[in-house]
């Protein structure tokens, strides 16, 4: 029976891709095979459009990076102890159905971690929506946060961080990214290889239903059209089953009876059977009628494409399957042998014995790659040449500071993170709200720090520089809590790559990020690409979001951002310049998104970070806080709010030639606000000088107000209580309006 063109087009395959499939297998595919190709060769699973560029990322750094080509990657943080981590997007499902979209995003990334034998220890959620004055943005935010809260809290994996950003560019396409981390003894990392002819192939966890059919190929690999009904392609999450699945899988791995394991995420049975076979250089013969089902009458192609959640594929040692099945039964979960590993490299799928698909696993798992055309967009030149020196100077800087503290991009995100259990597992040493989360590793002196960062505005205005600024800020955040940056994961959120200007943004971001990672000797251990984040109106800002993990030699020597003691000196590591392009101040006060993002000197950044880390490790700094959105004035305000103490600050005379608004609210990178006992100031100066980092004393901690002066004249002043009230309540007031 000839396959109709309508069928492959509905599955999201182009005519050219169909031709390629025919030439690859030497015949027309069966409907089931066609469905399998459509998911496996989709951008979501196979990365055919992004893979050629992703090779630019460095894979090695100072800390040993573990695992290549698996569900997640990691770094060794202590002898024989690896932290595995990965970030993913669930943008499209969340835009369609925010609660389930976000919930199943958490479920999916957690499975990527425990499938490798690691105990999940933390989740972070970087979130981006349209502006909160839009009812739709508020609806999406509330739904997404409830979904994460529902799923993550039940699992008992703390949500320790994330981001919250609001820009009009995300109105039609919210970005819901989620990062998870896990720990595992390095010599016990599990693989996803199917090997050993005759070994049983087992499906465990939830039964298979019609939910999520085509999620990867249709939902995640195309733009949204107006008014399209895509809800049936969103999966439904069951965190209780996932919690039991975590415990059962980790217990089963301990028996040693498991050969390989893989999470059924996008593309379910297709993805796991073909990728495990290909990774192991073997084949599989599976019988679909043995798979537990939620409803009768499902066609083989539906079974192969279903994205029902909370399922895993396991290859066990022949003869020890009962040990494995017994553990799943103890946890009340399905576990059924439905196939065997074969030696011929073929993935053979049967329905009631009849072969419905017979494909070379390697061919299915090796989608073609495309070199897409790219072109610099017109807006880029315009933004680069924007002259910001003529901007009108605000008359009342105190009013600007007050307004910036109320910006939802600056204000406290506690309305969100108090809905997440961020303390379960009793490892959270620095909770959400700090520069980075710090986790202890019970039984080890070392701890880890983790943060996520993105800046769509910077990356829109200059993708190469923007991506580097994001890495600089993320690593600076880690250094501020006393951690040495060690490894990176990324979630690259972009528009339609088939449009040359969008692909140019992607290309430049990847190049910028790869160069900066190489400079800082940071491996990119895992990642995810999310394309087609656009509607007929517009694309999202190019938004690479980074998750960066750092290591604390001694978790007791962590640092926090709030001022601690009256009388402490306030120091600024780094230098302020006229950096107003792309800033929160420019957007909020001048209603403009333009200019060049702040210039970044990677060596200067490295020096400032080295000085800060050394000062913290030597126990000289009482607090450390990164300067980012809203500039120095906002950073100082946050130090006051977190510490519950005021500060008296004089802006450095050396910068008196700069615009006052840039001195207060400009976002020059490579700056850190430290506070320290007066007796430690000299030693901090020495450290900074040795590391080649500029340092200046700005003032003193004390009182109940933040007072800022320049050249002897007061330029802004605000009470700590008022700042705290504005900063804490802004998001709640906007969301619950």
């Amino acid at each position, binding site marked *: 029976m000839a396959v109709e063109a309508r069928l492959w087009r509905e599955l999201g395959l182009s005519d050219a891709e169909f031709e390629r499939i025919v030439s690859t297998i030497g015949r027309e595919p069966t409907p089931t095979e066609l469905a399998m190709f459509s998911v496996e060769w989709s951008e979501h699973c196979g990365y055919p459009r992004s893979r050629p560029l992703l090779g630019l990322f460095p894979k090695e750094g100072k800390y040993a990076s573990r695992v290549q080509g698996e569900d997640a990657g990691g770094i060794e943080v202590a002898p024989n102890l690896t932290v595995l981590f990965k970030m993913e997007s669930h943008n499209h499902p969340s835009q369609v159905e925010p609660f389930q979209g976000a919930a199943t995003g958490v479920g999916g990334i957690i499975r990527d971690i425990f499938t490798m034998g690691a105990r999940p220890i933390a989740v972070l959620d970087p979130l981006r929506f349209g502006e909160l004055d839009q009812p739709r943005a508020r609806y999406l935010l509330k739904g997404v946060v409830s979904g994460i809260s529902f799923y993550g*809290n039940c699992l008992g994996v703390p949500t320790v961080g994330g981001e919250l950003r609001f820009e009009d560019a995300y109105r039609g396409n919210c970005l819901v990214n989620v990062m998870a981390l896990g720990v595992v003894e390095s010599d016990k990392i599990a693989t996803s290889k199917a090997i050993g002819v005759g070994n049983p192939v087992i499906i465990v966890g939830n039964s298979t239903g019609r939910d999520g059919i085509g999620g990867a190929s249709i939902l995640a690999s195309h733009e949204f059209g107006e008014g399209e009904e895509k809800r049936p392609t969103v999966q439904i999450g069951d965190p*209780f*089953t996932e919690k039991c699945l975590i415990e059962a899988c980790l217990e089963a791995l301990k028996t040693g009876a498991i050969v390989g394991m893989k999470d059924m995420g996008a593309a379910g049975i297709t993805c796991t059977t073909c990728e495990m076979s290909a990774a192991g250089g073997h084949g599989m013969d599976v019988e679909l009628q043995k798979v537990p089902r939620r409803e009768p009458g499902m066609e083989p192609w539906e079974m192969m494409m279903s994205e029902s959640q909370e399922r895993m594929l396991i290859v066990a040692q022949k003869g020890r399957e009962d040990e494995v099945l017994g553990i799943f039964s103890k946890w*009340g979960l399905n576990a059924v042998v439905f196939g065997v590993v074969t030696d011929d490299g073929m993935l053979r799928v049967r329905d009631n014995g009849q072969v419905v698909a017979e494909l070379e696993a390697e061919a299915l798992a090796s989608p073609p790659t495309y070199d897409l055309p790219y072109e610099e967009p017109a807006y880029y030149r315009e933004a680069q040449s924007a002259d910001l020196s003529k901007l009108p100077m605000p008359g009342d800087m105190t009013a600007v500071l007050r307004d910036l503290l109320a910006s939802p991009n600056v204000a406290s995100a506690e309305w969100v993170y108090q809905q997440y*259990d961020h*303390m*379960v597992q*009793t490892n959270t*040493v620095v909770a959400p709200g700090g520069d980075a989360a710090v986790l202890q590793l*019970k039984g080890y002196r070392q701890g880890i720090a983790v943060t996520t960062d993105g800046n769509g505005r910077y990356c829109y205005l200059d993708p190469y520089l923007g991506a580097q600024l994001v890495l600089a800020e993320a690593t600076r955040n880690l250094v501020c809590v006393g951690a040495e940056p060690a490894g990176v994961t990324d979630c690259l959120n972009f528009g339609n790559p088939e449009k040359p200007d969008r692909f140019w943004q992607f290309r430049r971001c990847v190049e910028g990020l790869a160069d900066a990672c190489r400079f800082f000797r940071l491996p990119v251990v895992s990642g995810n690409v999310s394309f087609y984040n656009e509607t007929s109106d517009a694309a999202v800002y190019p938004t690479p979001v980074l998750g960066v993990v750092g290591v604390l030699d001694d978790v007791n020597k962590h640092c926090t951002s709030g001022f601690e003691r009256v009388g402490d000196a306030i120091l600024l590591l780094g230098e302020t310049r006229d950096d107003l392009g792309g800033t929160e101040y420019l957007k909020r006060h001048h209603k403009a998104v333009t200019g060049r993002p702040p210039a970044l000197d990677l060596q200067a950044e490295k020096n400032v970070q080295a000085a800060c880390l050394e000062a913290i490790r030597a126990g000289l700094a009482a607090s450390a806080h990164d300067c980012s959105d809203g500039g120095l004035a906002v950073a100082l305000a946050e130090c006051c709010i977190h510490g519950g103490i005021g500060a008296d600050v004089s802006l450095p005379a050396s910068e008196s030639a700069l615009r006052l608004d840039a001195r207060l609210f400009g976002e020059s990178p490579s700056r850190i606000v430290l506070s320290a006992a007066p007796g430690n100031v000299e030693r901090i100066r020495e450290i900074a000088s040795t590391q080649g980092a500029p340092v200046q004393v700005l003032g003193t901690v004390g009182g109940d107000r933040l007072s800022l002066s320049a050249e002897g004249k007061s330029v802004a002043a605000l009470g700590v209580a008022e700042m705290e009230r504005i900063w804490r309540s802004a998001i709640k007031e906007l969301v619950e309006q």
Partner: protein
Amino acid sequence: MAAATKTKTRFGVVIFPGSNCDTDAWHAIHDRAGAPVDYIWHQETDVSGFDCVILPGGFSYGDYLRTGAVARFSPVMKAVAKFADRGRLVLGICNGFQILCEAGMVPGAMMRNAGQKFVCKYVHIRVETTDTPFTRAMKKGQVLRIPIAHGQGNYYCDGATLAELKRSDQIVFRYCTPDGEITAEANPNGALDNIAGICNPGRNVMGMMPHPERSSDPILGSADGRLVWESLIGGAR
């Protein structure tokens, strides 16, 4: 029975499918309080080998119905009820408190938080009585800084029950300000009379919403929860 007066309290932490504070309780008791502790699987039918049974936090059996509504029917809960009837110690934390309510081992019920949202944060609670094995190492009126993390901690009981709880000194903890004042603002979930923890008439079963196991290690921000373990150690019969 042979006297074993100096033996340390033996703790058992129940694991229901969906429990997620079981290991935290284990670590707090083992690492911080230095007492012997084991896990108890939900299908166990005998818990008599322990001195104190902990029903930990989490989402037992998913809690897709009412919190604790399924767990109360599990095999281990029959054994725990029998254990409590003999005067042995049972501490329900968070989901454990919800289960105790559902099982009728303490009076009252839990509703959704007044704000309709899950709340995870540090709160302050005031010690209302030290006349329990769970609080004897505390001082009456003492304020503890301790985290909560729940969506259904809005304790409720009828007026007669509340009067009885008060009359017989069964209210153990109440949400308060850092200075120990009982105010509406200090109440994170709408609980009746700011109730954060109560005990049964026999005073050997206590339920509390805040998490002492999360505040037993100073590096996590508070070690006030250790007073619960210190009260219990050496205090069991």
